[in-house]
């Protein structure tokens, strides 16, 4: 197994030690638990809603890299592809609560849901109000009509960004949740994978794809997709990914969107841009205009090769929140023009 690591069982904690060492002015932890990850500026502005996420490790920059100004206030860290505990979520909740309650924004995975709900129960004892926005935008993970069973993937970034911007504007908890939910309702993702990744403690790939195969719709933990086929040309791959996205919401002529082109890890930016060439062609043909394109690594699966496309339909409210500046260790944005 070619991973730069020490002992497999120290993978997550060594990574966390590295993060705290690298960014001592930006992030820290609470409750003497490395896995209770918060912005250095904790507690934040009095009366600002706290925004937190959390979930399994192995998806950097997801969660941790987005803790900072104008985006997340904290993130609970689980083992690789494992949920953090309700207690850890609860400890962060207490730390980032500035008297206005905390919004949990996380992906639609069983373990995460159960633990965030356990935390909510604990927080109730302290009279801290918590609300949940469960992100579930992966089109191929469950059919239309059963959207609530869909997985949350790279689109989580958009939910963090807009909820964070809303909180920064001192909106109350209910309003921040409304923004996060609206973001989720207006976005869709489709992913594809080319190679598996290895969970350090397991030491071997969780699935196999032949040297000339790809899988459309595969989840970030290797959950089965909807079709395994021979490698196709980029333009054809994008057609297979983007058209189902467009039909699902649906996105229509005249809509304005933000696009997120995400690498699962090993796929280089070169290829994301080659894909975007086709995305641009299709959106132009459908008269859907693009406000801003985010491209790179936002939600990865360690060294997995593959990518995902996310579309977020914007109205003026979402657009102004998307445009707001943010400053975290993995995502920095100046005010968009």
């Amino acid at each position, binding site marked *: 197994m070619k991973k730069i690591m020490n002992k497999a069982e120290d993978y997550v904690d060594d990574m966390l030690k590295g993060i705290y060492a690298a960014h001592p002015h930006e992030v820290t932890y609470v409750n003497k638990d490395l896995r209770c990850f918060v912005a250095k500026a904790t507690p934040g502005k009095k009366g600002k809603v706290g925004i937190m996420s959390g979930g399994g490790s192995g998806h950097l920059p997801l969660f941790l890299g987005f803790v900072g100004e104008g985006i997340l206030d904290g993130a609970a860290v*689980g083992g690789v*592809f*494992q*949920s*953090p*505990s*309700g*207690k*850890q979520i609860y400890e962060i909740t207490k730390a980032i609560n500035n008297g206005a309650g905390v919004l949990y924004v996380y992906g639609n995975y*069983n*373990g995460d849901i*159960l*633990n965030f*709900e*356990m935390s909510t129960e604990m927080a109730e004892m302290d009279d801290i109000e918590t609300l949940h926005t469960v992100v579930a935008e992966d089109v191929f*993970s*469950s059919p239309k009509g059963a959207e609530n*069973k869909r*997985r949350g993937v790279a689109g989580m970034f958009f939910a963090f960004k807009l909820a964070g911007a809303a909180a920064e504007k001192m909106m109350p908890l209910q309003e921040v949740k409304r923004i996060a939910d609206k973001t989720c309702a207006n976005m869709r993702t489709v992913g594809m994978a080319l190679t598996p990744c290895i969970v350090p403690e*397991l030491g071997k790939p*969780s699935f196999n794809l032949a040297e000339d195969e790809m899988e459309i719709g595969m*989840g970030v*933990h290797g*959950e*089965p997709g909807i079709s395994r086929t021979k490698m196709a040309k980029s333009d054809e791959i994008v057609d297979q990914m983007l058209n189902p996205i467009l039909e699902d919401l649906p996105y229509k002529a005249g809509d304005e969107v933000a696009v997120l082109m995400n690498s699962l890890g090993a796929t280089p930016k070169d290829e994301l841009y080659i894909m975007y060439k086709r995305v641009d062609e299709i959106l132009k043909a459908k008269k859907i205009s693009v406000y801003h394109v985010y491209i790179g690594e936002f939600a990865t699966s360690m060294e997995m090769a593959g990518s995902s496309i996310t579309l977020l339909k914007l109205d003026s409210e979402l657009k102004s929140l998307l445009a707001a500046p943010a400053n975290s260790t993995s995502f920095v944005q100046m005010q968009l023009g």
Partner: protein
Amino acid sequence: MNLSIDDYKKILLYLAGSMSEHKQELIELDSIMGDSDLGLTMEKAFSVSSKAMQDSTETDIGKFLFQTGMAMSEAAPSSMGTLIASAFMQAGKNLKGKTETAPEDWKLFAVGLRDGIVNRGKAVPGEKTIVDVLVPVAQALENDSSGSHKEIFERLETVAAEALEKTKTMKAQHGRAAYFGDKSIGVQDAGATVAYIIYKSLSNYFKE
């Protein structure tokens, strides 16, 4: 014969031993449509919590079980870890105030396991989860909680085994297995197997 805190400490250790024994079986079941961690997380949940609780000076059996659940949830925050933790916490709530328990109190325990998990996970019977074993077991005790510890668990072991078998016919609606849709039919549910192991072990414990 009534059970004291000391008995519960022994029972916890016994359950932890059983989970270790079934570790590989659970890993294999969870590998079919899951992430292969169930054997590891169950072993961890039970071994960490049972060990931690040995030093407990708690005399209230309800509080003792609640704390066991808390320890489980920190040790193994997977789906099943969190659900089993919620189960023990609810069982603890149901038994709060008791410093010893009679055989018929197993009803409060079994109902607690069931309710803790149903409230946390919102699954209903037939959705191929641990609930499909916990519900009939609790129902059996609600119908009849007579007899000795040994007699009670002999009955429950049979109920649990039949209920577990039925999960093979169901289509998964929760967790990773749900992504497999119809393909999940025919396979025994991994989580339900955990419930079966618990009841079977309790039955063995009282046989010995």
